[in-house]
């Protein structure tokens, strides 16, 4: 696998959005906000190449259109707002057993991995899906409202854990968020979807 690099969107178009261009450096977080239904999630899906779209996405020197689909998504990892679980227990969804301190950082214990998937709450699923994606060590992250279903205290904890990971691993990250305070805390750059365009807001 290549070593990654900055994430660059070049004239990406999907749904009503078109000509979206932006670039994120290593370890840089960019937030995207917009009314619901404005196409934030679909834009992330285009970057992960889950839907047909216009334009090109670059990860360092690597072009999306020249990389096999699964290899691209393995590196540019999308964590959806609603996660899905298909095996019996939590642990079966992890290719590699996550470290204990990672589990503790997200308020889990080591036996969480033995839990039945059916007993997970929405918030637990959300935190575990973040851990599941992060423990695959991708090269870039696409987060769709990663703290939407969490209470305030947990939300801040998860947010801090994510920011720390992103900075230390140097993952360029697109982060869809609603909460203005969260955007101000995690991101230096902030785009908003205005009808069919992505416009950058002055940094706060």
């Amino acid at each position, binding site marked *: 696998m290549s070593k990654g690099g900055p994430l660059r969107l070049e004239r990406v178009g999907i749904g009503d959005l078109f000509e979206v261009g932006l670039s994120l450096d290593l370890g840089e977080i960019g937030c995207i906000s917009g009314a619901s239904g404005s196409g934030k999630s679909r834009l992330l899906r285009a970057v*992960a*190449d*889950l*839907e*047909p779209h216009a334009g090109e996405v670059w990860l360092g020197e690597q072009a999306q259109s020249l990389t*096999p*689909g*699964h*290899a691209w*998504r*393995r*590196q540019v*990892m*999308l*964590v*959806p707002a*609603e*996660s*899905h*679980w*298909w095996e019996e227990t939590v642990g079966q969804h992890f290719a590699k057993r996550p470290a204990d301190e990672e589990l503790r950082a997200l308020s889990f214990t080591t036996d969480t991995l033995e839990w039945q998937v059916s007993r997970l709450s929405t918030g637990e699923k959300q935190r575990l899906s973040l851990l*599941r*994606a992060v423990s*695959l060590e*991708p090269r870039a992250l696409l987060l769709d409202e990663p703290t939407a279903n969490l209470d305030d205290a947990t939300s801040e904890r998860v947010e801090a854990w994510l920011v720390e990971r992103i900075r230390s691993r140097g993952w360029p990250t697109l982060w869809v968020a609603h909460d203005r305070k969260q955007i101000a805390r995690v991101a230096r750059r902030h785009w908003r979807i205005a009808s069919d365009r992505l416009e950058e807001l002055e940094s706060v």
Partner: protein
Amino acid sequence: MNVIDLSWWQLSLAALMVVALAGCTAAMRLGMSRSLLIAALRTVIQLALVGLVLEALFAAERLVWVVLMALAMLLIAGREVMARQKRRLLGGWAFGIGTLSMFLSSFTVAVLTLTVIIGPEPWYRPQYAIPLLGMLLGNTMTGVALALDRLTDTAWRERGVIENRLMLGEPWQVAIGDLRREAMRSGLMPMINAMAAAGVVSLPGMMTGQILAGTPPSLAVKYQILIMFAITLGTGFGTLAAVTAGSRRLFDSRERLRLDRLSTPRT
């Protein structure tokens, strides 16, 4: 080998009883009588017609007629496979995949069974070829239809899971692996059940027919075993081909799940 002759008035006694059954369901307002009567009528007309066709076919004993008959059966089976799917692949793929996989498996198995195993003279002798192919196609059709229906319908229901697995970087074959297994299972289950129950719970239709026609049971049993293996082979390879092609068609060259290639069910 003497078979007691059946005349039409004797059949009409059986038909009268079917009408009586329809009358009962109508009286109890079960809403079944209409479809029951239509199905019974279709049986009479279709079988009477096919009887005429077979009489002509047996008399002529020409390869080209056998082939034409086989093709007609195949196309009707392909249409039936398509009609039995709730969400079918658009753009002729449902018909194409179903028909092609039935053609590959049923025809190959039928020709092999005729030439290598049974060996009538000539090998396409209609008396052997048509019933054999009919039983093969009928069962393969059920298997292929069940498997494709299960595959597309589950892909629709489980699209969140499949896409989430794609997001985690799994190749499409892995992301749809569980669905493929389930689809294969539902395609092959009827035949596996039939083999398991054969002779114990149910007496298979062909064997019963041969025994009624005066064939010694030991020979009828051998034919039945041969037919069941042939049907299993036809169904198995047909289902395998259909599931492989169908699941490939659910993804595009970028390994994206493309549910827009499925039709929406009619209400």
